[in-house]
């Protein structure tokens, strides 16, 4: 059977890619083969526009247990345990159907983690939407938050942190990135490589239906546009109950040593799972689609091979253990079927009742996709537009209130209260109580901290500097709770890499990520790339989202961000050089343009070390990094959280040739707001790290003196502004 030229284009393959497939097969592919190639050669699966760039990232470190290429990365946390983690996007499905898109995003990342044999212990999510005054954005936001809660709450994994930003470029193309952290006994972890010719291939979990067909190619690897409603059938439907059973079933199977290897079925379904397992193991694989349990009887072989039905896992099992495996599946009411066999053919063969309906070399299918060089060119100025929402004549006090009530700075209580943050009895620091989530690991005798960050607007201003900042922000958040970074995961959400501006953003961002990780000595153990995030109005802000996992010896000493004691001194520590470029204030004033100051990575790293050691030594009452909205917002957040006012004088900053406005609202990396005994704070100063005593905790106002722009805002008024959105949504 031959296929017309139009068909491969419809499936997202270029003419030259099609010719290459014909060359590798020595013939025209049939429908089954073409469908399988189109998915595995999609951007989503083959990383064809990003793989060359990703080679720049440092991936090795003493504590790395599993690195890129596995279902998730993992680092050693001592005591014979490893922590596995990964962040992944589910952007386009969420833009088309936010509830199911976000829910299945969570389901997918959970499977990636338990496929390694790790029990998921925490979820974090990083979300981006258009502005809240848009009906579409509120619809997407509401659906995505409910979807994340629906899945995470039902399956019993705590959602412990995350971030949400609202910016116009995400209006049509929201971002839903979910990160999962899991805990495993290192010796019980498994890799996703098929091995042992003659071993059985067992499919477990939900039956296979027509949902999600073409999700990876049609939806994830193309720009969004008009008529996307028609793509709704390509969005998968999640069932957390099914996943809960599959999860327990898989962990029991791995605990009993019954599996040779395990892989989840995600994008491109059976095609990618079978192909990637065979590729990793250097073997071949036969799959008989007639043995796959189906939801609909009349499914075609290609549909079965590419279905993205959720809650399915693929395992390789020694023939003598198959019965035991099926018995455990039965206990957990998990459907299972032996659907194939590991071969030495080097081919992925698709059979129907024994008759071959597709046969492709594993190498061609999985690793044969051409990798492309980008053609980057810096855009000519700021391409995203501006809109002014704050009166330029606003006083410093009015400006602070406007910032505190802006959706990006305001409390996210309205969102995180919809998530179970305590299940599992590990959550030592809950959302918004500290800069990073802290989880105790009693079985390993340690604790970890996790943070997820990335400010797309600042990356748009300077993709290199903005991405460096994302890594540094995570590192600062970890330092605030006394944690030292162990490993990093990332999700690169960008526009169309085939356009010069998109290529330039991606290229610069990856360099920033690589340089920051290198300088901090943090290995990148996994990640995900989501390209073609563009709507009718243009590309999203380039948004690298960074997830960082670190360890801390004593979770009890993890600092919160709240001021704790009247009379404590307040200090600003670190190489903080605030600027209004790319800041929240510049956004509100409609003054965004290209350019950001570059961070001094080594100096920020030194400040992180100082803060980390001070937290571990129990010297501080609170620690909070200076971030969105600048120093004034950081002070206000610590004051509101502690229900304690503060009196500070920023004039020491003005001596650094910083203006009053920059001192109050300017942004940039490296600043920590610390409180504690004055002598303890002063003792943190060193040649490498400057400490400025700014004032003290106390009173019922946030009072900031700074040259010509002083302000005094009542704590109650500040709290009302910061919680305005939570109150409005709670109604």
């Amino acid at each position, binding site marked *: 059977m031959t296929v017309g030229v139009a068909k491969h284009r419809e499936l997202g393959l270029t003419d030259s890619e099609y010719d290459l497939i014909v060359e590798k097969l020595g013939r025209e592919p049939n429908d089954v083969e073409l469908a399988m190639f189109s998915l595995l050669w999609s951007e989503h699966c083959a990383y064809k526009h990003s793989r060359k760039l990703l080679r720049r990232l440092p991936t090795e470190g003493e504590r790395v247990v599993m690195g890129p290429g596995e279902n998730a990365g993992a680092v050693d946390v001592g005591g014979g345990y490893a922590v596995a983690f990964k962040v992944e996007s589910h952007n386009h499905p969420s833009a088309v159907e936010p509830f199911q898109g976000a829910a299945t995003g969570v389901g997918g990342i959970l499977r990636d983690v338990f496929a390694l044999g790790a029990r998921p212990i925490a979820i974090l999510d990083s979300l981006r939407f258009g502005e809240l005054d848009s009906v579409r954005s509120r619809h997407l936001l509401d659906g995505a938050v409910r979807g994340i809660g629906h899945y995470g709450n*039902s399956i*019993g994994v705590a959602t412990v942190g995350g971030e949400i930003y609202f910016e116009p470029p995400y209006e049509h193309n929201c971002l839903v990135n979910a990160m999962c952290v899991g805990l495993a006994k290192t010796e019980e972890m498994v890799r996703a490589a098929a091995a042992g010719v003659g071993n059985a291939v067992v499919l477990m979990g939900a039956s296979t239906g027509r949902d999600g067909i073409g999700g990876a190619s049609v939806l994830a690897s193309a720009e969004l546009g008009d008529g996307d409603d028609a793509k709704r059938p390509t969005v998968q439907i999640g069932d*957390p109950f099914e996943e*809960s059973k599959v999860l327990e079933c898989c962990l029991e199977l791995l605990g009993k040593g019954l599996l040779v290897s395990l892989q989840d079925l995600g994008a491109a379904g059976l095609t990618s799972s079978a192909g990637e397992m065979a590729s990793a193991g250097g073997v071949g694989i036969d799959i008989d689609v007639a043995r796959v349990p189906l939801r609909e009887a009349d499914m075609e072989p290609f549909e079965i091979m590419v279905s993205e039905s959720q809650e399915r896992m693929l395992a390789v099992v020694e023939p003598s253990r198959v019965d035991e495996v099926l018995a455990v599946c039965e206990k957990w009411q998990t459907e299972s079927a032996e659907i194939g066999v590991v071969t030495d053919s080097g081919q992925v063969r698709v059979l129907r009742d024994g008759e071959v309906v597709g046969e492709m070399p594993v190498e061609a299918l999985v690793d044969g996709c051409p990798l492309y060089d980008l053609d980057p060119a810096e855009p000519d100025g700021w391409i995203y537009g501006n809109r002014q929402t704050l009166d330029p004549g606003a006083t410093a006090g009015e400006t602070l209130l406007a910032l505190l009530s802006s959706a990006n700075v305001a409390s996210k209580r309205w969102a*995180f209260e919809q998530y*179970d943050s*305590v*299940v599992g009895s590990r959550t*030592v620091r809950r959302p918004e109580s500290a800069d990073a989530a802290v989880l105790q690991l009693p079985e390993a005798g340690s604790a970890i901290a996790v943070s997820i960050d990335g400010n797309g607007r600042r990356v748009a201003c300077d993709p290199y500097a903005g991405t460096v900042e994302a890594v540094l922000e995570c590192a600062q958040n970890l330092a605030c709770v006394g944690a030292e970074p162990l490993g990093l995961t990332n999700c690169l959400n960008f526009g169309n890499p085939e356009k010069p501006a998109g290529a330039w953003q991606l290229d610069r961002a990856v360099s920033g990520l690589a340089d920051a990780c290198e300088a901090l000595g943090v290995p990148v153990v996994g990640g995900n790339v989501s390209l073609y995030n563009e709507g009718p109005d243009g590309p999203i802000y380039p948004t690298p989202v960074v997830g960082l996992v670190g360890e801390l010896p004593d979770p009890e000493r993890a600092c919160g961000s709240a001021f704790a004691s009247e009379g404590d001194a307040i200090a600003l520590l670190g190489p903080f050089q605030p600027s209004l470029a790319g800041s929240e204030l510049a956004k509100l004033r409609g003054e965004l343009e290209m350019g950001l100051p570059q961070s001094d990575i080594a100096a920020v790293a030194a400040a992180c070390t100082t803060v980390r050691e001070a937290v571990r030594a129990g010297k501080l009452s609170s620690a909070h990094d200076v971030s969105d909205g600048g120093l004034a917002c950081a002070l206000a957040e610590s004051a509101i959280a502690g229900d304690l006012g503060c009196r500070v004088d920023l004039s020491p900053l003005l001596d650094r040739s910083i203006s009053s406005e920059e001192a109050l609202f300017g942004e940039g990396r490296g600043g920590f707001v610390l409180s504690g005994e004055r002598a303890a704070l002063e003792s943190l100063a060193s040649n490498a790290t400057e400490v400025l005593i700014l004032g003290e905790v106390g009173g019922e106002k946030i009072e900031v003196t700074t040259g010509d722009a002083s302000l005094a805002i009542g704590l109650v008024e500040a709290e009302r502004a910061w919680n305005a959105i939570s109150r409005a949504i709670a109604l």
Partner: protein
Amino acid sequence: MIWGVLQFPGSCDERDALHACSLLGEARLIWHEERDLGGADAVVVPGGFSYGDYLRAGAIARFSPAMEAVAEFAAAGGPVLGICNGFQVLCEAGLLPGALLRNEDLRFTCRQVELQVGHLNLPEETQVSALPGGTLSIPAKHGEGRYWAPEEMLDELEANGQVAYRYAPGHNPNGSARDIAGVRNKAGNVVGLMPHPEHAVDPLTGSTDGLRIFEAVAAAGAPA
């Protein structure tokens, strides 16, 4: 004392409940297909989404073999504690009065709440009302926790002292009738509540107030 903690497909908080019980005695999981409670002196029906909460929260779990055994155990005076989904299961099974409806704002809510406690079967000096603050600080997390019963039944529950736990003023997260967070049966040996005492047994994770609730359950089953 041996605690048995039920485990259904879709349970989420059973391991946390098991841990909490192990602080007070021996604790074992009881698989939903078991008819034998394994010699347990007290039973916890834990939180989560048993059977995916399909049909209605707790509606399917109540028909499990283990729940049949729990009903017999309760009828014989054995102490039973239902937490969140477990409370829903006990109401569905008719072991406790009333029903749990969707939260007033139709959203799942997770937050620390303060609970007022009526008279517990504990020594006077350890009554919660005698403690500083007089309330228990415990997390609540659910989407279907709005306690409901007909007015006359609510009056009767109050009159009989069956309102075991009440949200302190301003802490009702779900619109429950009369701020009711938990109720007990007439005999006093079966109690259910929406907040999660098993998540309040460790100072590191926020509070140890939940232990009082487990202690009260244990005392309810102790020989007179």
